[in-house]
């Protein structure tokens, strides 16, 4: 009999404790975000889609050589200017988002911090072609994912 009363008492207490827990959680800030409208900011060192700051690139081909999956494609032409100096100019610099494994080696090897992995984490696109040949020279290269995004002047500080 005593056991039964104790059991009953403990059951009621545990229900009340549970109710208190849920009541407390009603006044806790929300954990989830209203996603498409508000977006979570990534960590500084987040490795997202590859981005390039074209004026900083010295066409050293280091990133092309180190890329383990050959996701980058670079071509350039050389011209002699009026004062006799050789001037290199990029003719094609594309990035294949389908192959990229987000290892960050291109960013590590780049001597001028021209190529880097941005914070762009939404990588889905509507058409297969949109992800195959992303033109890194275009500042609005990710306009189909986020219209507000454009390549910054300088590589963001990641430390």
């Amino acid at each position, binding site marked *: 009999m005593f056991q039964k009363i104790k059991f009953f008492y403990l059951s009621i207490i545990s*229900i009340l404790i*549970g*109710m208190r*827990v*849920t*009541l407390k*959680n*009603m006044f*806790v*800030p*929300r*954990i*989830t*975000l*209203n996603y498409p*409208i508000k977006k979570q900011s990534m960590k500084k060192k987040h490795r997202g889609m590859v981005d390039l700051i074209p004026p900083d690139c010295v066409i050293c081909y280091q990133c092309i050589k180190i890329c383990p999956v050959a996701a980058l494609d670079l071509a350039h032409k050389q011209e002699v200017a009026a004062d006799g100096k050789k001037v290199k100019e990029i003719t094609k610099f594309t990035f294949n988002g389908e192959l990229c494994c987000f290892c960050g080696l291109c960013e590590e090897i780049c001597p001028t911090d021209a190529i880097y992995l941005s914070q762009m984490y939404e990588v889905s696109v509507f058409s297969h072609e949109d992800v195959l040949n992303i033109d890194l020279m275009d500042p609005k290269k990710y306009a189909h994912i986020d219209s507000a995004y454009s390549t910054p002047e300088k590589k963001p500080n990641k430390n």
Partner: protein
Amino acid sequence: MADLGALFLQGSAVLGFIAVSAMYLVWLERKVSAVIQNRMGPMIVGWHGSLQTVADVVKLLLKENIVPTGVDKLAWWLAPFFVMVPPVMAFLCIPFGQKLIVNDLNVGILYIASVTSVCVLGIFMAGWGSNNKYSLLGGMRSAAQIISYEVPLLLSITLVVMHTGTLSMQGIVAAQAHGWFILKPGLALAFLVYLISATAEVNRVPFDIPEAESELGAGYHTEYTGMKFAIFFLSEYTNVFIVSSVAATLFLGGWQGPFLPPLVWFLLKVYGIIFFLMWVRWTLPRVRMDQMMAFAWKFLTPLALLNILVSGWALVK
């Protein structure tokens, strides 16, 4: 002719209120669950997702109406009407205010209790007619559950009737002019018994074994699609409103209260109780079938009877 017009107006007012109320109860349920689980809930359609249910209703109306093979046609088609009509009928004598009542029957509370217990018939018909073992199990469980919990529910209502000496809803409200019934010890216990049995009566967690998702799919409405499913949903939330408004009328003083208009007071009390039911739903786990039946017959019914005995003795002393 004028009577017919008034009847038509009252009927459409009640039906409109039921539809809007059930719609916003669904939204409220989703919001309360979201708040308890630290989520946002519906946010896209309308202000904080307030038009989400409208979108859902449009979706349900446009859905295909699938009739499974081998259903018992008559039972299967009639079941949604059997679950929807009783709660609508019960609105006849719910007092929203001094004059805001369709008809103040002199057997009001008895009428509500007897009419709403017809609901179980519809649920069992749905379970039987669906030609699905899970639906049948759900329907049978529901019948057992609702019939068992009807006993303590009616016993706790009996106590209120013993105190007031009237079955009329307005009479019960008038009897609480000098203090709500929940403030009297015997009736407070009756309120607790009523609330527990009412939760079971409307098949809500922790007594939602008729539709226990994890074991029965969705119980008696597994096979229903489109508007028929929506009618089951509508009836469920209308039933929640009915039991909460009966609780507010019987124990919390109905539409009475200072400063604010009666309608506001009534809706405040009703939605307060509904919020409490939702809070319980998103806190407690489901009980087992045998535990639930044992709780009804071995604990709740004796408790209600004992309560009547003690309070009745105090009344006639």
